[in-house]
């Protein structure tokens, strides 16, 4: 290698170290909402440095195609980032994961074409990493697209179970191993394409049996896969910045997956094997329960809130569906003006992805220091006068703590039942995703306010104003 080329290589690798440090510090700054925006900029700077270092340090033969791809990609990215509604963030993340996986798979294909064209033998470690990259990338691609389809309502959200899916999955896995061995012994595009096709099919088969309510876990897991696919590409090209950044994303996805499975009362192994989220056929009507509940009107609710000292709002996804975030914030502002303490209790699965509800409330200008997670808020309910549950159900069901026969037993819940009194905004007496009746509704301290969440809160707001 000439001294000039070596010099360039050293500059590139030094720049990669700086980029890696900036990525890590950037992620560290995501540790607090006050520094998070700066952290994100730091990561973006790291990306810029990595790209420039790559361009400077390598002989790039032709620019036309690369520039074309970069401009189109940037345009699509910028457009979707600006236009996406915050309620649709899970779809955006899902489809971006898919693109990341696709990029990894295509890079592996391109590298293999280059190696085959160059003649000569391909080392075993290179063959293996090429296969790892295309397999993880392809599974991420189709898996993410199915997840996107389920979130967007294009694919049925109920679990779709093929009769002999386990047999099919095992057959596909065997085919994948066989084609990998084939590629190692005799490098050819055929073996590569077979493995790719199998991985694409596997991505669909792994996600299609999963119910819509479990999509938060799936997105977190695919997030992790997209990182691991990037790291695998780093092994193919012998490039450390890819390995480091890919691993960071992989770790992040795995942590979020664990948090979500814990919050949903499932094991990680259960998730990894797929086929979860299947309703066990239990009746989900719950309407045969004719125990009496106490129902109230908006003016009574307004009275209770206005004369309380402390209030906790418990938002669920129903709140976002009703687009009632802004009305809730308006009500909170009125109560705070009366000197009442207002906080929000956010369960990890309150939205459609980890932290989703926090973003939806932040969009409605709710200050982040009023948003409390499970551990922070659960001790506070006992000292709270009124808890207002809006569009949340299973995550407030006290049976999860007490009733061993309940399907949700052991799931971490918000201890809403410990508040002095509870107001529940709900359309009807239907049960939640788990198909279990919520014992909270039948407590003496609980008042039901039936109707559309947005309309109900608007009425409460005007009643509080008139007091």
């Amino acid at each position: 290698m000439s001294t000039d080329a070596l010099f360039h290589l050293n500059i590139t690798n030094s720049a990669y170290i700086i980029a890696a440090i900036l990525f890590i510090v950037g992620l560290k700054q995501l540790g607090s909402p006050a520094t998070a925006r700066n952290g994100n900029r730091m990561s973006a700077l790291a990306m810029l440095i990595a790209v420039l270092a790559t361009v400077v340090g390598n002989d790039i033969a032709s620019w036309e195609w690369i520039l074309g791809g970069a401009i189109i990609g940037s345009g699509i990215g910028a457009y979707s980032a600006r236009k996406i509604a915050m309620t649709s963030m899970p779809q955006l993340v899902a489809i971006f994961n898919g693109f990341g996986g696709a990029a990894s798979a295509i890079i592996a294909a391109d590298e293999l074409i280059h190696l085959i064209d160059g003649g000569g033998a391909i080392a075993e470690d290179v063959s293996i990493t090429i296969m790892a990259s295309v397999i993880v990338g392809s599974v991420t691609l189709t898996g993410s697209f199915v997840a996107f389809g389920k979130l967007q309502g294009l694919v049925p959200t109920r679990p779709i179970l093929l009769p002999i899916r386990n047999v099919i999955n095992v057959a596909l896995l065997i085919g994948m191993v066989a084609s990998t061995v084939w590629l190692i012994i005799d490098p050819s595009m055929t073996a590569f394409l077979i493995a790719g096709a199998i991985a694409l099919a596997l991505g669909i088969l792994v996600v299609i049996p999963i119910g819509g309510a479990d999509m938060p876990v799936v997105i977190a897991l695919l997030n992790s896969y997209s990182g691991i696919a990037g790291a695998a590409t780093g092994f193919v090209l012998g490039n450390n910045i890819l390995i480091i950044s890919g691993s960071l994303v992989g770790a992040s996805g795995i942590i979020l997956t664990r948090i979500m499975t814990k919050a949903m009362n499932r094991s990680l192994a259960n998730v990894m094997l797929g086929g979860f989220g299947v309703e066990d056929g239990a009746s989900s009507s719950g309407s045969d329960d004719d125990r009496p509940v106490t129902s109230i009107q908006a003016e009574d609710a307004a009275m209770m809130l206005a004369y309380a000292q402390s209030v906790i709002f418990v938002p669920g996804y129903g709140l976002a569906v009703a687009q009632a975030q802004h009305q809730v914030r308006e009500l909170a502002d009125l109560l705070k003006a009366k000197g009442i303490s207002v906080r929000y209790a956010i369960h990890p699965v309150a939205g459609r992805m980890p932290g989703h509800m926090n973003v939806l409330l932040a969009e409605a200008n709710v200050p982040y220091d009023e948003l409390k997670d499970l551990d922070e808020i659960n001790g506070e309910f006992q000292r709270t006068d009124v808890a207002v549950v809006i569009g949340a159900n299973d995550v407030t069901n006290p049976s999860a703590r007490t009733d061993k026969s309940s399907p949700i037993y052991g799931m971490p819940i918000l201890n809403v039942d410990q508040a002095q009194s509870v107001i529940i905004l709900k359309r009807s007496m239907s049960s939640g995703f788990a198909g279990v009746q919520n014992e909270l509704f039948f407590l003496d301290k609980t008042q039901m306010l039936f109707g559309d969440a947005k309309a109900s809160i608007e009425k409460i707001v005007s009643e509080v104003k008139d007091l």
Partner: protein
Amino acid sequence: MFDAEALIIALTVFVLAIFIGYEVITKVPPTLHTPLMSGSNAISGIVIVGALLVAGQADGITGQILGAIAVGLAMINVVGGFMVTDRMLKMFKRSGQK
């Protein structure tokens, strides 16, 4: 030939980076988990580096087109990921902060 030394070094980097990622990311509060996901999405767009490398070395037209597609897909992640994360983080405000 099989380069065991390079593979071991790559594995070392991989394992250490996973540990660092785990330590750093467990400290991200639940309230920022969505920006964390979209931000890490943007970081997984680092495959842009790989895309540039293979696109730059491609000899035939197939290789060049594949490389350009990979560059485009990675750029969607990079630009879209960082921008949407910034858009979200901009909305997070403390009490009394305008």
